[in-house]
């Protein structure tokens, strides 16, 4: 079995702090730098918040599964849900020169991870694949 850690939460925002704690700890175990750990912790929090807000539309009783593993490419995080299909082309952060609420999360995710990709093979729901290359 690959070196793997998995956590499952329900889509209630109160569990985001658990996701952050686990992400930081796994990042530490996998040897990420201190700044790298901060960045991936925030990015995974943002990605799970997006699932709660957009995919489950605020329903706090749905499952979110987060899988972490270290591969040859780097630190990989898979975030799975069973909600409505995300249209990847519709995901766009705001222009950072524009001052308005919202649209920042996707920038924070892409800052931490080199690959941001939805796995189209997943039939029901979404699987977001994030990879931070080995530096």
């Amino acid at each position, binding site marked *: 079995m690959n070196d793997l850690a998995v956590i499952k939460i329900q889509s209630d925002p109160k569990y985001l702090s658990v996701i*952050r704690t686990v992400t930081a700890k796994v990042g530490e175990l996998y040897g990420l730098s201190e700044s790298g750990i901060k960045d991936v912790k925030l990015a995974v929090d943002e990605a799970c918040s997006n699932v709660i807000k957009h995919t489950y539309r605020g329903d706090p009783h749905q499952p979110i599964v987060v899988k972490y593993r270290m591969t040859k490419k780097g630190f990989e995080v898979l975030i799975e849900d069973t909600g409505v299909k995300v249209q990847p082309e519709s995901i766009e952060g705001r222009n950072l020169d524009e*001052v308005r609420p919202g649209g920042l999360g996707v*920038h924070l995710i892409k800052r931490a991870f080199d690959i941001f990709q939805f796995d189209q093979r997943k039939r029901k729901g979404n699987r977001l694949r994030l990879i931070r290359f080995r530096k």
Partner: protein
Amino acid sequence: MNVEVRDYQGMKVMALSGEIDMYSSPALREEMMGLLDQRVTPLLIDFRGVSYIDSSGIATFVEGLKRMMSYGGRLKLIGLLEEVREIFSFSKLDQVFEIYGSFEDALRR
């Protein structure tokens, strides 16, 4: 996250502590909007106890700032820890918000 509203030299201060995320930001928003309904100005936000902020927290402050600008109010953010300040900087919002290292600095300007 904990929010405490207090008076400091005749001004309103919101002292925050803990982590601001999608779970805690609605309570923060409610507290702040309650003050803005009264057209409070300036409003000082004491960030010294905040160890983490995500985009929902940032969005709450952007909304508050816009609301205050509509009535000529001033929102002053004080004592941001490096991890928090860095998010404002990354999002270029450090050029939009009034950010101060200490209460003394915030009161001088």
